[in-house]
């Protein structure tokens, strides 16, 4: 177990190194540079700025410096917000994103699994059909349209919730719904089809023949097996919530990291883009690692050493 963890952690480090190298390379492939602007700056200012951010060092030196700092999780200064480091900004804004993200995560998992179960239980009834129609709609409508509809409905037509900003519990509802809509639909479809799969298994038939009630059959026998694909979806789910937060936080003017990321794309604040990308990748990789470690606990058939997908 410990050996496995060590192995995986080493692997994650290699992946992070590759990621940092790729992002660094991409960022330095930009023609011009982070300070090339329409307005010409005096050469002395340019020189001073380049000196300050070590931009006139050789590429190898810059790379080595960046790696050294990244190794201790120091992502450097922001070009557009002088005096603030990328770390400051992440520390300031990420808690908000994390709060929204976790609420959406649990919303998506809870509602998705329950609804999927009900749909599978009442297969081919109108409940099932209407749920699946909702799920298909949820998968095919982009989150910014869902957000727009939610704002229109619940903030303007029927003003019961705030349309934007982030000042308390009632401000969480709409963004969380907009963010969770798509993953919820996906989990719903996933749960439904995997429960239907599980219900077709022999051990379910045996249990049914023994006279086990449908409801307890569903909860005690089918659900446990049906949840496995859902557990393995938590990794991609976290990733999709993360990218979804860019849009949702921008629309609802939530001061989270996602909105900051979008702003720094608009501003072409390269160290911010670079830093946040690395931070997010780190987060996702760690998340996947945790899920891979948890997975065998849920499903004892999978031994840790075996690679997933084999």
């Amino acid at each position, binding site marked *: 177990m410990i050996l496995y963890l060590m192995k995986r952690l080493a*692997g994650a480090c290699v*992946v992070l190194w*590759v*990621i940092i190298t*790729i*992002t660094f390379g*991409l*960022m330095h*492939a*930009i023609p011009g540079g982070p300070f090339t602007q329409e307005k010409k700056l005096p050469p002395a200012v340019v020189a001073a700025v380049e000196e300050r951010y070590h931009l006139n060092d050789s590429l190898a030196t810059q790379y080595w410096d960046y790696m050294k700092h990244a190794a201790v999780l120091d992502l450097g200064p922001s070009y557009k917000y002088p005096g603030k480091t990328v770390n400051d900004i992440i520390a300031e804004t990420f808690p908000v994103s994390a709060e929204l993200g976790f609420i959406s995560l649990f919303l998506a998992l809870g509602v998705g699994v329950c609804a999927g179960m009900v749909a599978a239980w009442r297969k081919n009834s109108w409940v099932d059909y209407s749920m699946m129609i909702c799920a*298909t*709609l949820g*998968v*095919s*409508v*982009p989150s*910014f*349209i869902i957000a*727009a509809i939610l704002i*229109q409905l619940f903030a*303007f037509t029927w003003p019961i919730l705030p349309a934007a900003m982030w000042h308390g519990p009632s401000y969480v509802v709409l963004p969380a719904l907009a963010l969770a809509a798509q993953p919820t639909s*996906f989990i719903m*479809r*996933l749960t439904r*089809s*995997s429960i239907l*799969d599980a219900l077709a298994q022999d051990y379910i038939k045996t249990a049914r023949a023994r006279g086990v009630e449908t409801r307890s059959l569903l909860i005690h026998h089918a659900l446990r097996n049906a949840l496995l*694909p859902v557990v*393995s*979806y938590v*990794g*991609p789910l976290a*990733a999709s919530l*993360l*990218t979804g937060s*860019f*849009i949702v936080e*921008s*629309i609802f003017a939530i001061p989270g990291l996602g909105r900051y990321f*979008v702003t720094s*794309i*608009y501003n*072409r604040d390269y160290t911010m*883009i670079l830093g946040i*990308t690395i931070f*997010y*990748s780190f987060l*996702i*990789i760690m998340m*996947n690692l945790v899920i891979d470690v948890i997975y065998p606990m849920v499903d004892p058939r999978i031994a840790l050493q075996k*690679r*997933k*997908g084999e």
Partner: protein
Amino acid sequence: MNTHDFEPVDPKCIVPIRIPPQTLRSRGWRQMKQNKLALLGLGIVVIMTIIAIFGPLVTSYTYDDQDFAMANAYPSPLHWFGTDSLGRDLLVRVLYGARISLSIGLAASLINLFIGVIYGGIAGLVGGRVDRIMMHIVDILYSIPMLLYVILLMVVFKPGLLNIYIALGIAYWLNMARIVRGQILSLKKQDYVTAARSYGTSTWHILTRHMIPNCMGPIIVTLTLSIPEAIFTEAFLSFIGLGVSAPMASWGVLTSEGINSMRSFPFQLIFPAAALCITMLGFMFLGDGLRDALDPQNQKEGNR
């Protein structure tokens, strides 16, 4: 034992049983015909494609004709979908948007297909250590949030149509590679492939006659489902300001412009959003239907 227990069968009653050979196409089509949603999806996709190709040819405006006197005009007989803040006809822009969004979906998916089939095909065919290493690379890439790298690519290269094709194409081939490799691996063990090999059939012949036709089902399904994903991603990129550059507009650009003005001019959001959502639904229905029809082993949703 008395043999007269059984009446001899009247030869006239013997009807030769003729089962038509079940090709993928005939079986798939038969199943598709029963699936009304899939047919609806197919219809939507076909209509949208026709609109995208021929729509812009029959309109009286162009996508960048500006008419400030008519800015933000509500839908009227003159401008069926109204106009945007620069007085450009929204109907024409939605029609052109269809062209751009669908072409992005198609181009990105074809690049996916190309890379994925070659990569997965090599991994599956060669097998052994090469396969292990290649699939390990895929696993590693899989754990990286690709969308971030698409964003990064779009930041580095200028946002433009061609760059969107390329960025989306090279980011999302992983799924295709996995599916092709899995198919090839399982097909390699099939008896008829062993049989063909024992006859001395060449590898090329086995590949083209046995492997590729049998991989087609999952490949088509993955391809169909990757088109809406690409359109979706493009809409997302447009929203964060990395979409196609003005005055061209994809549905994503039109929708995100519409969101900015939705309080005052809701029609500017409704029309492009409806076009986008209807098309997405069409592809989803079609993809699901194709999956049920062509790929009976793989009906789970787990592999995106």
